[in-house]
């Protein structure tokens, strides 16, 4: 494992990237991005086996699919800082003629992206298809996904959840960003998800939980544990408890920052809580 401090520094820089990307274009989704920072850093800096020399087919490497595409700022930052494309390109986020569209897409050829996402609920099906192709190809690598908890309100997820268990797709690890918040408020107020663990278990998934998804050690341990449980006939679900807006005091404990960018003053305050580590990209 790279030293823990290095991973934490990486995460702090990613948080700065998220804040600076969204502030620069006065749009985008900082809340969920900040909440999933440790997950992305753990995945791309510690867990996954991948090539930065990107190929769409992704043979003989682990794959990741982001289903809740609106948290693109964290995805772009981690992809760039993991070597998929120049960090400077983060300055083009959501701008005209950019490869960094508001929601991730293959359409502009950004390395690291294998399917468009944004319209919610589609990522698990796509990932399961990729996982089945890996099996057909005799490829032992794994497929990872991330989904919002609110996103589980989309019915297609449950078709896919049923299918995965029924077909013993055991080379997939689907993580749920369990922050219990969505645009209109708490998931309990909008459409209660009930007991998610029991729901996944009832669908014959192997379920484990990460109690603090904003603690990088816990995230790494949880992902490693999930990895150890693959190949045993069941798909794996991680319920990862996170805090929307994590790392910026005034963005935490509310759903307000789901899709709202910080203004100049707020940016300054937020960046002060996340001092520069790996170097900001120029604007």
């Amino acid at each position, binding site marked *: 494992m790279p030293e823990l401090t290095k991973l934490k520094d990486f995460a702090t820089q990613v948080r700065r990237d998220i804040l600076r990307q969204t502030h620069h274009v006065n749009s985008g989704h900082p809340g969920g991005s900040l909440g999933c920072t440790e997950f992305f850093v753990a995945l791309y800096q510690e867990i996954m086996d991948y090539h930065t020399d990107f190929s*769409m*087919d*992704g*043979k003989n490497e682990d*794959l990741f*699919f982001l289903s809740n595409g609106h948290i693109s700022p964290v995805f772009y930052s981690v992809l760039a800082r993991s070597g998929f494309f120049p960090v400077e390109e983060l300055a083009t986020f959501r701008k005209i003629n950019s490869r960094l569209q508001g929601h991730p*897409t*293959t*359409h502009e050829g950004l390395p690291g992206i*294998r*399917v*468009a*996402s*944004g*319209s919610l609920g*589609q*990522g*698990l*099906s*796509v*990932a*399961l*298809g*990729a*996982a*089945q*192709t*890996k099996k*057909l*190809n005799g*490829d032992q690598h794994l497929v990872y996904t991330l989904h919002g908890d609110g996103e589980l309100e989309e*019915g*297609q997820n449950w*078709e*896919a959840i*049923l*299918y995965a268990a*029924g*077909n013993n797709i055991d080379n997939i690890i689907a993580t749920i960003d369990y922050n219990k918040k969505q645009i209109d408020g708490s998931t309990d107020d909008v459409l209660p998800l009930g007991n998610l663990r029991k729901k996944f278990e009832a669908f014959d998934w192997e379920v484990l939980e990460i109690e603090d998804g904003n603690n990088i050690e816990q995230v790494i341990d949880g992902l490693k544990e999930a990895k150890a449980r693959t190949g045993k006939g069941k798909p794996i679900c991680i319920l990862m408890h996170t805090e929307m807006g994590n790392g910026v005091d005034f963005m935490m404990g509310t759903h307000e920052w789901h899709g709202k960018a910080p203004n100049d003053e707020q940016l300054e305050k937020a960046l002060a809580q996340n001092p520069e580590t790996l170097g900001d990209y120029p604007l």
Partner: protein
Amino acid sequence: MKYTNSGNIDTRSGFGAGLTQLGKTHKDVVALCADLTGSLKMTDFKNNHPERFFQVGIAEANMIGLAAGMTIGGKIPFAGTFANFATGRVYDQIRQSVAYSGKNVKICASHAGITLGEDGATHQILEDIGLMKMLPGMTVINPCDYNQTKAATLAIADYQGPVYLRFGRPKVPNFTPENQVFEIGKALQLTQGKEVTIIATGHLVWEALLAAEELEKKGLSAEVINIHTIKPIDKEAIIASVKKTGCVVTAEEHNYLGGLGESVARTLAENYPAPQEFVATQDTFGESGTPAELMEKYGLNARSIVTKAEKAIKRK
């Protein structure tokens, strides 16, 4: 007539035969079906290659996503269900996960149009061509008989990109050559004529040939063009024929909004404006009945084409 019917057979069986052949020749072809394996004639493929056949159950949205994902790593997925459930039901899945993502998925849609028959309007989609041709990058193919459907099925496996392949349930004349080479985007001129061009697709191509015979008896020669590929449409063939005849009838088993007729009208409006008549459903849902009864009631047969052709000629 130059074209003879070698026997009535359903176009979906042409798809099934093509898929069976692809199973032997294309190791990367995989097939998915949403609980309609027999109806789609995918049973042979399933039996011959169980490891490459995926029964997804009654869950079409998931099927489209799975198919998109399976392309990652080099598979060529043929996803089959009824046209209604292969398009309108899963439009956004096709839009985002397949078309926008540029995935090499073949959407194979049986029981298209009104000739599905007795099941009625819930299953008779007449809007699917429009839905699919609106998607950037989507190729839309609607072959006319068994032989052509088989040839199209083979051809799309070797084409890189998303394809919507539309075929049907009823047994219809099989009249195009066996083992024909199918060229995506290339219109086929079936008869030579001077007075009117009839551009038809799918089940209406045979009806167009019958109509041309009727018109011939009235001393009017019709040029019948089989447009199996609605997108990209063969503009050159359309313009060349209409320059010769001066008017056109389009014929399709689809709503006149969004179908072949509109693609032809746009082509002509931009290049060579000419009178056009539309044989198509008139912005309506279908209903239960036998295929022949429905084709008659909704004006989708040779008789209707003849009437529209005479009208088009008068408008010149």
